[in-house]
């Protein structure tokens, strides 16, 4: 197995003598050539983690390895990592060429080497014709290219980006996504970026690490993570709309039922007698994609349509089932009317249970036909 390009080992950052824990001992291993997204809401510790990797902040404890070597004691300028700021932070009074050349100029590299490297990177990013323009006169996505190019010229081991797409308009976002993908494949960059936007995470990354309150809750391949959230929080964060989550209890033989049942307030769902989950508190997850509307009589759950949100290709229908709101995604052609009484059905295999205490997903398959 090859050495990970970047490795975080029990990395932690505290402020005010432990009063504020920004990063709570996280571990992460990034393979060479991989793109990883650190996804989470504001304050989850992702930017602090980024700052520690770059060297703008010092970890309270733990270690950071690049190509197997610890870099925590190396000053930021010498770590060979590149960082692209959210606002790009180009040098406004310098030309594109001067911006790109900066990293090598301050290292006192030879003029010919600098020119060659700058031309190469400019070519790679499609900025070849703009080398003489002052950075402050550039457009948004051009500035971002310069910011990226500025780091590429120094051939960093790892490229870090802070919210790379958030400052771009929709059209530019699409283009930049493809650009970054292309860079990845053409020069085999290892990329770590930080974002609060799940679309940004899903569209660019090979793997996603979901962070919350200073911890990494789950690291998983992009293609898999939506369907297999490991943690209640991840389930509630990913997806548009995210998984329907119902916190409740499993109790054996509720009133008149044949076997164990899951209750969330007024809502009750019967579970087969051989359900491996014992009595206790759990959170039930129902993915909007795996729910469907059927006639009331055939459905395990029934309710009324309270909201219909048209999204172009599909609709998000919110159904009030016993005063619980469930989101269902349907093809646009099937959209129901407001106030319509409907039944909600699902494939029993698509039920997901999370432990009440651990919040972790439980790997079980209870077959359920409802009451």
């Amino acid at each position, binding site marked *: 197995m090859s050495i990970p390009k970047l490795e975080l080992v029990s990395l932690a950052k505290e402020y005010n003598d432990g009063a504020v824990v920004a990063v709570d001992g996280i571990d992460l291993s990034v393979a060479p050539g991989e793109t990883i997204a650190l996804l989470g809401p504001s304050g989850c510790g992702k930017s602090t983690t980024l700052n520690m990797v770059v060297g703008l902040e010092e970890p309270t404890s733990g270690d950071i390895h690049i190509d197997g070597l610890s870099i925590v004691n190396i000053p*930021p300028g010498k770590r060979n990592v590149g960082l692209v700021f959210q*606002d790009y*932070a*180009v*040098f406004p009074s310098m030309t594109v060429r001067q911006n790109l050349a900066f*990293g090598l100029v*301050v*290292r006192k590299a030879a003029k010919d080497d600098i020119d060659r490297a700058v031309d190469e990177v400019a070519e790679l990013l499609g900025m070849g014709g703009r080398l003489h323009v002052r950075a402050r006169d550039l457009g948004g996505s051009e500035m971002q290219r310069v910011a990226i190019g500025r780091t590429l010229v120094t051939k960093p081991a790892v490229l870090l980006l802070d919210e790379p797409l958030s400052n771009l308009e929709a059209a530019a976002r699409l283009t930049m996504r493809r650009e970054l993908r292309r860079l990845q494949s053409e020069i085999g960059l290892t990329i770590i970026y930080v974002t609060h936007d799940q679309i940004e995470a899903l569209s660019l990354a090979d793997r996603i690490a979901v962070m919350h309150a200073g911890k990494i809750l789950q690291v998983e391949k992009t293609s898999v993570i939506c369907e297999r959230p490991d943690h209640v929080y991840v389930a509630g964060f990913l997806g548009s709309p995210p998984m329907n989550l119902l916190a409740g209890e499993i109790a054996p033989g509720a009133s008149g039922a044949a076997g164990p049942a899951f209750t969330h307030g007024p809502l009750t769902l019967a579970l087969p007698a051989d359900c491996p989950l014992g009595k206790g508190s759990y959170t039930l997850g129902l993915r909007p994609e795996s729910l469907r509307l059927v006639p009331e009589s055939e459905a395990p759950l029934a309710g009324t349509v309270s909201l219909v949100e048209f999204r172009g290709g599909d609709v998000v229908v919110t159904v009030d089932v016993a005063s619980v709101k469930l989101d269902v995604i349907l093809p646009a052609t099937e959209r129901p009317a407001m106030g319509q009484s409907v039944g909600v059905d699902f494939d029993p295999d698509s039920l997901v249970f999370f432990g009440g205490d651990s919040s972790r997903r439980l790997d079980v398959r209870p077959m359920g036909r409802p009451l």
Partner: protein
Amino acid sequence: MNPPVATSSDAPDLSPAAPHGGGKPARAKGGNIGLALTLPGQIVSVLVLVIPLLVALYMSFTDWSPTRGSLFDAEFVGFENYSELLIWDTRFLYAVLRTLCISAVCLALEFTFGLSLAVLFMRSFRGKSLLFSAFLTPMMILPVVVGYIFWMLFQSSGPVNQILEFVLGPDVALEWFRSAPLAVTAVIITEVWHWTPLFFLILLSGLNSVPENPVRAAVILGANPRQVFWRVIMPTLKPVIIVAFVIRAMEIIKLFDEVFMLTRGGPGSATETISLYIYKLAFNDFQLAYGAAAAFLVLLGALGLIHLLLMPVRNQLLEVKR
């Protein structure tokens, strides 16, 4: 004056975050009020500034002196005053040269000290706000008082000489006001003490508004602190620096109060600035017309100088001024 036609570029930015009180105005609506509001100011300016200026201008083309009766009876001599000043009046030319040299030296020193102080203030240390107020004190003091204080300090038996004796030995007994180079030095020291805080203030506020991310980016790219300062921070400071220089230059060429209190222009005319020379012309020698001509020459020269200084950053400066 024609009211401007509203075009799409006049449409104000209505986003809450953008304060735009000074942008393209709603001229059509409140035109009369605008005039009414600025009228008192314009009246005062015209009465108390423009008219005397025009009188002075007229005067500069005559050979008038108060002893010769009314101004309007005075003989019109065209550019005679001006040509005499520029060609024959060595005292005037020396005064101009002297003022420019003293100004240049003072500005350079004020900038250097001000910048150094500002850079020091970018560090964190205790008592910073108290120290900040302390360092601003010199520029709050009246120019005549500053002149007076340093007049005392530079006396032969004064503390400056005492300190110099302590450092350099008892043979150093400088007569600051008896020797031309020393007198000039005393003037420069006084000026620099008085106005370095202004450069400090302006440069510090400039440094504080340098955006942080480009600085961080430079550090991550491997620049050492000196490279960061000169390649990233200073270019951002350029417009601020120029504003500071222009503002200060405008005032220092009029140098009068401090020099008056220190040396009256002496010894001889060793520290005679332009303002002092014109003052003497007008109020010692009563050559008022001649003095007026000198003043207008100075005005033209200063305008030209400022224009030259501002050329490289005209566009940026308009942004800053807004």
